[in-house]
């Protein structure tokens, strides 16, 4: 009797789609990757005053400096104006007017110890929104 030998089948794993799979994985990683950055209001504090250093005290007039004092109840006293609460748009208009008066105007933010931190951040946010560069934050 004649026994026919079984023909061997081709045992291959199809690899044509590996490239597609890899690219899909790359796209997935790229789409889900979130760059880890911190977001906030950046500020440079003034150097600590040292009695031995050659610090010179300068008196600034109202044309050169705007004093913004945040009180414990959230109200704001600007220069000699009586303290009151300001709407954001109102405060921005006031800062803009001061800037037009003197583009290099220094804004000194003084916050009472009892005032809320968020009130101080809000004032800084308004100043930053108008691209004010000369901001001084009082730490006394």
């Amino acid at each position, binding site marked *: 009797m004649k026994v026919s030998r079984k023909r061997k089948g081709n045992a291959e794993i199809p690899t044509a789609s590996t490239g597609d799979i*890899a690219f899909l994985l790359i796209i997935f990683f790229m789409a889900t990757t979130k760059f880890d950055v911190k977001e*906030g209001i950046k500020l440079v504090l003034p150097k600590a005053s040292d009695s031995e250093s050659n610090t010179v005290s300068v008196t600034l007039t109202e044309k050169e400096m705007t004093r913004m004092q945040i009180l414990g109840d959230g109200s704001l006293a600007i220069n000699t104006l009586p303290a009151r609460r300001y709407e954001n748009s109102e405060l921005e208009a006031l800062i803009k007017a001061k800037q037009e008066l003197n583009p290099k105007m220094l804004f000194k933010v003084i916050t009472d110890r009892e005032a809320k931190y968020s009130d101080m951040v809000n004032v800084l946010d308004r100043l930053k929104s108008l691209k004010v560069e000369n901001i001084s934050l009082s730490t006394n």
Partner: protein
Amino acid sequence: MAKFQARKRDVTIPQASTSDIAFLLLLFFMVTTVFVQEKRFWVERDRWPVAENIERIPRNLTTTIYVMVDGTILIDDLPSRIETEEDRVVYTTLEKKKAENPDLNVCFRTDRDTKYGIMSDVMRQLQDANTLVVTFETQTKASGGKK
């Protein structure tokens, strides 16, 4: 005279190595990805103040100080308080960090209802340590922040 006909060449771009390239790219992304895991959020994001004009700072230049509403200050997850002039934890820690990284940026994660006096005490110690660049971390309105 015999007529010569130029044989047309097959113009194909070899694609056999695309999967290798793709896998190399994939490996690169996988190897360079760093998972940042905070041990604990001492002040949750929804308690941060809201601001619109924010800046983005790369994390590798920063160190985080948490200031809780009760006045507890956390640097490297170690709690401390500033009650007297002798409490100089912020100064001593930041002075060391500043020596290691001169471009250090101190990020505050402070509860929005914290009294400014505590922040003022912390910032005075930062000034003494000559760590002058600070960032007040905020959330945006878009991220669900409420004034």
